[in-house]
């Protein structure tokens, strides 16, 4: 039965694409290589879990609470923690190294807080866990719903970035921050906004993931890794690339888990990563840098 893993792979890939879009905004626009990215995702998972089990709030309504909160927290992180590094960095490369170090520290703080609160156990909650039949394959309703939301959010982001004034400013900063300054774009405010938007997207991804996957406090690293690989495979700053690369990753993982061994999914991810590095380091849709 090939439709079953195909369907799981596509739904998983859609969510990976959404998660990677947030990272591509943070890295492509704000130039922050955020190694604590997955921790934001896991934090959103726990927030959704807490809302559902303690206050019995539906995770879809939870999105309306968690996503704006995540945007605010990420904006504050950028303004308070990362702005000093942006100001002190003499060049883009220096900022990259500094942001790697700072967010690596942040990773351990965030992970430590979650471990202290929730411990190392795996968690999940049962929301819409009813089987649905599509093309002869069985999928849980929560998984389909999560995929649907990922598609809607991704499309909204795409339209927002290409059709609105603020979106155009964001893309301008991604292409060339110096020229963006010349056409009266406030580069730092735009970068902060893009960073917050990226944080909002990953939180949305976290809430959606929590509806159908089990998670624990130390899962962040794996999600960061996957998001980074999708971003590189798709080409930094390329939303369409995120979509295609996310699908490739989701499908590969599901097929490896189904037909080879679930313990080897990260190995499969790494093989894809090595292939990209060897064959197309600029990404599937990226332009070769001179």
């Amino acid at each position, binding site marked *: 039965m090939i439709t079953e893993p195909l369907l799981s792979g596509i739904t998983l890939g859609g969510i990976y694409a959404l998660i990677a879009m947030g990272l591509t905004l943070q890295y492509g626009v704000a130039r922050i290589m955020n190694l604590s990215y997955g921790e934001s995702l896991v934090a959103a998972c726990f927030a959704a879990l807490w809302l559902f089990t303690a206050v019995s709030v539906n995770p879809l309504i939870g999105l309306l609470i968690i996503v704006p909160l995540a945007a605010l927290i990420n904006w504050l992180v950028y303004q308070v923690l990362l702005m000093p590094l942006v100001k002190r960095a003499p060049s883009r490369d220096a900022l990259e190294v500094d942001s790697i170090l700072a967010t690596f520290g942040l990773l351990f*703080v965030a992970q430590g807080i979650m471990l202290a609160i929730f411990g190392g156990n795996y968690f999940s909650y049962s929301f819409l866990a009813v089987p649905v039949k599509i093309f002869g394959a069985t999928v849980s309703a929560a998984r389909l719903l999560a995929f649907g939301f990922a598609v809607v959010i991704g499309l909204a982001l795409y339209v927002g970035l290409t059709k609105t004034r603020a979106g155009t400013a964001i893309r301008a900063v991604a292409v060339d921050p110096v020229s963006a300054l010349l056409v009266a774009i406030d580069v730092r405010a735009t970068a902060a906004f893009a960073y917050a938007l990226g944080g909002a997207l990953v939180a949305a991804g976290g809430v959606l993931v929590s509806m159908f996957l089990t998670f624990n406090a130390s899962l962040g690293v794996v999600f960061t890794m996957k998001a980074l690989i999708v971003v590189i495979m798709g080409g930094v700053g390329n939303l369409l690339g995120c979509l295609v690369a996310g699908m490739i990753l989701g499908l590969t993982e599901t097929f490896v888990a189904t037909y080879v061994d679930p*313990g080897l999914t990260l190995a499969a991810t790494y093989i894809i990563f090595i292939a990209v590095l060897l064959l197309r380091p600029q990404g599937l849709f990226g332009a070769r840098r001179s």
Partner: protein
Amino acid sequence: MSARSLAILAALAAGVVLLAFVPSFTNGYQLSLAINIVSYTVLATAWTLFSGPTRYVSLATVAFFGIGAYTVAVLGEVMAWPLVLLIAFGIGFALSLLVGLSTLRLSGVYFVIFTFGLAELVRQLVTWYEVNITRTLGRYIFIDVTHAQIYWQLLALAVTVFISGWLIQRSKLGLALRVIGDDEAVARHVGINTTMAKVVLFAFSASFMTLAGAIMAPRWTYIDPAIAFNPVVSFQVLIMALLGGVHRLYGPIFGVIPLVMLFEILLAKFPNHFSILVGVAFLLIVYAIPRGIVGLIEGVQLSLRNAKGAGA
């Protein structure tokens, strides 16, 4: 060689001889603290050997360290000890060549990302192998070695790392690396094979880390993938190197000694909040002393000298 550098050399040699006698006047707890200090000195200095001049942040220290430990767990009882160490060195060298050759031709960010997930990848692969092939997750290490012997081996390894680092700095490779660290485009234009230089150095740095893991392994008696590939080790090594200062080979020592003590206290008093506190300590270092203690001292010396010069 001038009289001054001969005197420094003699002092260093005397220092090493003195350090070799540490096991004879310490109790068990102090010796284990000394072992920690020397092992982190090896790791942080090996880290600096590569990441200092090239400014490529490696986050994979524990991947190599853990591989060393696992080599001993698998082969320690069936082979002679020097042969085990040699094999550990070889595996570390081969893996780091693979990592280096696939990432170091590109810009630094790919290298960082690759090393970021490497420990987790190796951990999952070892877990998969143990669960599916050997059917036991943990391993016992019964090797007849005293703590003093572990200490001496680590001390010898530390001396080897320092001598190699010193020789590399004086060689053409060292000069090439400094040019790469300053400006990689310039390095390529003056005809330096930048990829080769980086890969070779990374392989040496990683193999030293693997050896440190192999030597430390008998201390555990029981290991499983979660113990051997604990990501906090990579993080601690990074913090120690940065606190000490990575632009000098001897810099990390200034970070290792205070931080081993600090972590010892934190781990005893706040075991559940350890990684939060370590993370906060790290952020403080990144923001407040970006050039490390050695950089701080050199800055003070420079301003003192300038003040003297202005006064004269």
